[in-house]
């Protein structure tokens, strides 16, 4: 058995005004301060907004999956720290993303990826 660490997104918290940024920032967008503390962001959040990418984006830069493009959901997940993070959203049905659905982080690269908790619990 290997110990698999759950994925985690790294953000930053402003040392002056507490504003939380993702990705980690060199300066605070709210107050302009430079003192940033690197923090791990919460792994569970709610869907703030989303759409569905129905057509394959232009390649390059898009790298489609090995078995070809399938439409995917993309949106923003509001984390407990208040920041809304852009992410690919895995789900069985896009309707599952409605009503501020709860989602959980499953990958951090190439971009953050969250999944609906229902799907997550089935895994």
């Amino acid at each position, binding site marked *: 058995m290997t110990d698999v660490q759950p994925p985690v997104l790294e953000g930053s918290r402003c040392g002056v005004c507490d504003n939380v940024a993702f990705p980690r920032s060199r300066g605070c967008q709210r107050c302009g301060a430079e003192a940033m503390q690197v923090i791990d962001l919460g792994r569970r959040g709610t869907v703030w907004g*989303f759409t569905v990418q129905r*057509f394959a984006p*232009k390649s390059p*830069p898009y*790298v489609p999956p090995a078995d070809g493009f399938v439409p995917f959901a993309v949106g*923003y997940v509001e984390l407990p720290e208040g920041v*809304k993070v852009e992410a690919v959203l895995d789900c069985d049905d896009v309707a599952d993303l409605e009503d501020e659905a709860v989602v959980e982080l499953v990958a951090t690269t190439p971009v953050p990826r969250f999944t609906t908790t229902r799907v997550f619990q089935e895994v």
Partner: protein
Amino acid sequence: MSDVSIIGAGLSAFGRQPGVSGREMAVSAIRSALADAQLQWGDVQVAFGGSDGAGLADTLVADLGLTGIPFTNVKNGCATGGSALVSAVNAIRSGQAQIALAVGFDKHPRGAFDPRAEDWGLDAGYGDAGLMVTTQFFAIKIARYMRRHGITDQTLARVAAKAYRNGVLNPNAWRREAISEHDILTADMVNDPLTRYMFCSPGEGGAAIIVASEDVARSTGLRPVQLLSVATKTRRFGSFEVFSPAVQGTGEPTSVSSDAAAEAFQTAGVRPDEIGVAQLQDTESGAEIMHLAECGFCEHGEQEELIASGATEIGGRIPVNTDGGCIANGEPIGASGLRQVHEIVTQLRGEAGDRQVAGAPKLGFTHVYGAPGISACTVLGV
């Protein structure tokens, strides 16, 4: 501050023009604006302009004449035209010049824009994952807005159908065929809830505006339109923009369009309900809906009834995008902001032909919005 007026406005043709360069379109727009103002190129004392991807504006002098004037390149995304206009206005106000030119142009290849993640300060992974797609942003924003404010798909279709109808009436538009709301709604979905006919397409065209001091504007034979205000803004903290890896802050996002519009109205001493004709950035039909409220023409959520009532039609209470907007004219990034000003100048002069707003409107408004969170607004009057 001294008064500044628009004394000349010109457009090139819009839409696909094989074999014609963006720079040639710019020259055509400038010559058209000069003719409108009854001026020669040698009369222009300072110039500002740019394109997003069709070359440098200051090279246009090779075709216009080497008169030695200062000519500054502007590159400000969708606000390129607006920023050039602000600079031209300030040149008049400062006394640097009596006659100044603003020009914008572009010639984009077919298909969606394909920006590089690295150019936007993002990790290359955003490109690999298929997130460097501008249309996703517009869809996420309007989808959330529709849920919160009770806007329906039918309203999205109404706005697009109006754009195509107005395009039919505009001899210079790219799209000149009406498309029914049914065909708009059932077209291929690009990013839910937006179908392909709800979006503008990257396009081609040039637009030029000549501004002048009060003394020059009083010359006989001119049809000056007063520039009551022009405001450009960048985003404040907490805004939601194209290619944002995150939206920071709590509560509802701030709007740079609201900021720019509010400043333009305040400087002009004009209220939104006094405006007789408006141009609002319609990158897609959802944008026009949201910008109606962001710019102060209605409350959030009122658009559903307002648009169904026909208020934004040419014959309505507040006609919006009478020339067909970006949806019917396409989006040559550098040119769109000045195309909007051209349309309002044309309407306020009563020269808009089949698409003329009745009742001789006295006040007009223009609004552009673009990445990465910029907006430029003007209030014009006669």
